[in-house]
């Protein structure tokens, strides 16, 4: 309720059409500025780009480890590897943020940066889309893996047995029978992971930088909706100024986006579960 209140107040001060369509983000720091440009799109693009990088890291690793753990691994390996991967999920995000800022960022600069191992100078500073995306991907691995694990386990054994009976090898069974059957559930899991990535704050605040730009280069610093909420609301800002109120509008947009993703994902997962119950 309070969110809606503040959001409405913001749109009274700042035209909604510009908030949703403007291509630039340049708040004036004077606090009372009519000169502020508060466009959502560059922030949204940064958010999506970082989330996509994170998913590119997390989905293959998470999915393959889930397949291995549920189909191949002996119970010993399973009882050993699963909790260890689970530790990754229990680590607070501030730890990942620091890891991005102080370990992964400098490492990436030393590989892709000026005078790095690859001899290219793509990356200027430690804070970049790649840094935040990579670390966020690590954070999401156990999330994707445990969700997909549950879903793969829910595929009835009779389907596997049928496939084995026709002479398929184990990997052929997994690729052609189990995965297609589990696909809707896995899609739901990926959507849930995406909504986690979009709402993630500390990693991007520390790892992604503060410059809002629309760019395709993954080695550039970009910023996200969550990072801007933090930067607009911390410090001595006047709550009545559009620069502070924009954070509520951003929060509202974030809430709506993640809620939609969650509802769709939960719907898919639930529907899928009913199919085999």
């Amino acid at each position, binding site marked *: 309720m309070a969110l809606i209140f*503040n959001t409405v107040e913001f749109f009274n001060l700042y035209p909604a059409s510009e908030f949703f369509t403007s291509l630039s983000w340049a708040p004036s720091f004077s606090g009372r500025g009519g000169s502020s440009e508060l466009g959502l799109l560059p922030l949204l693009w940064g958010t999506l780009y970082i989330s996509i990088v994170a998913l590119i890291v997390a989905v*293959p690793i998470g999915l393959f480890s889930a397949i291995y753990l549920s189909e191949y691994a002996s119970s010993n390996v399973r009882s050993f590897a699963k909790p260890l991967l689970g530790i990754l999920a229990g*680590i*607070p995000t501030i730890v990942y943020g620091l890891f991005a800022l*102080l370990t992964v960022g400098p490492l990436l600069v030393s590989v892709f940066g000026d005078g790095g191992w690859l001899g290219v100078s793509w990356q200027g500073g430690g804070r970049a889309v790649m840094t935040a995306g990579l670390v966020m991907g690590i954070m999401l691995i156990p999330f994707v893996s445990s969700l997909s694990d549950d879903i793969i386990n829910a595929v009835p054994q009779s389907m596997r047995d049928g496939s084995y009976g026709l002479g398929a090898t*184990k990997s052929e069974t*997994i690729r052609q029978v189990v995965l297609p059957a589990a696909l809707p559930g896995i899609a739901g899991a990926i959507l849930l992971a995406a909504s986690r990535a979009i709402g993630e704050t500390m990693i991007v605040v520390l790892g992604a930088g503060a410059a809002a730009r629309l760019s395709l280069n993954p080695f550039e610093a970009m910023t996200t909706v969550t990072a801007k909420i933090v930067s607009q609301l911390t410090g001595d800002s006047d709550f009545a100024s559009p620069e502070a109120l924009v954070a509520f509008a951003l929060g509202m947009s974030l809430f709506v986006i993640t809620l939609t993703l969650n509802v769709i994902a939960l719907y898919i997962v639930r529907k899928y579960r009913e199919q085999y119950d």
Partner: protein
Amino acid sequence: MTDATITPVPSPPKTPLTEADPRTKKRNAAEKRFQYYGIAAIAVGLFFLIVLMVSIVRSGLPAFTQAVVSVDFTLTEEQYDEAEAQLFKTAAYQSYFNAVLREELRERGLDVDFDEAAIERILGKTGGTLREFFRANEDQLGQPVSFELSASSRVDGYFKGRVTREALQDSRFLQQSDLDLVDALADAGIVFSALNWNFITGADSGVDNPGGAGIGASVVGSFFMMLVVLFLSLPIGVAASIYLEEFAPQNKFTDLIEVNISNLAAVPSIVFGILGLAVFIQFMHLPQSAPLVGGLVLALMTLPTIIISTRASLKAVPPSIREAALGVGASKMQAVFHHVLPLAMPGILTGTIIGLAQALGETAPLLLIGMVGFVARGYPDGFVAGFTDPNSAMPAQIYTWAARADVSFYEKAWGGIIILLVFLLTMNAIAIILRRRFERRW
């Protein structure tokens, strides 16, 4: 009529059954490859875990030690009176100290000379510390007192390898010649690394004093916040789940609530922060930066976790227990509170501890309600003040250190993470032990 000649299809060359044909080989290879992908994926995941742990431990452990200078110092009463009579009192103490240090060096046969400025660069202003001590303990006058004075953060960095001779540029903070002196002092055993208690028990320091920064005050802040979370979310969460699980009728309305709870669990934490800012601070005018507000926000976040786990453990209690209780004449409420709830308790506690551990590591919402590190300047005065005085929390304190420009704060941030992880590990271990100990299979 044509002579249809049937051209015989050449049958595949017979290979012995014990030998795999190329196609089988290919399929088996694909099988192996697929398996290796899986192993590789798990290996990568565990590799990341190890890298994370190693970098935390390697960068964080130095925060727990601190280079100190240990000097036996005797101040006679005449010296005390003389110093107190002067205009620059601390400067007088400082010159006493320098004299003692010089004497000590000569006794050990070290032929290094230093000027007062060098000592000030290495140790900071020692006079103030000495004066404070002797003014508080006048009875110690005339007796040898052993002082352990912490060295400046740059000297500390030199000890830990963060500051190197090659990289050091002479500045008013530290010069090459000072490092010679430090080396000599270290050889004599006057400067050495000691456990840095101040880091564990102290409060945050200013931007320009990384050496004095400690995490103790924000641990206290976190503790008060966890109290609020525990006393709000546990009763509310348990009550809500008992109602939903045992009493509520199955209808559209309860269904809607259920969907909402599972959605609430997936709302980004920063949205809770904005909500807290708008409702608790803007609307209800609760004090900013107070652990009370932080606790309220985190309680909102923890509620879904507690409700979900409580409902799961209530569900796990078999209906026969309820029926038996009802059968001997208990009311529904008695059945729930005397029989079902005690049996579900271990599961509820486990879920609560895990929820608290999550809340303890949460940062983003705290930043929005102003619980940033630099407000944690001291301990709260009392129990009530612990809730309402501005304070920080461990993760927010770590964030503040990480965001500071001075590189020496990074070490503190890693060290803070070790402390945070120790707390989390303890909580999770308690949860696992509880589960192992009391879990019942029906």
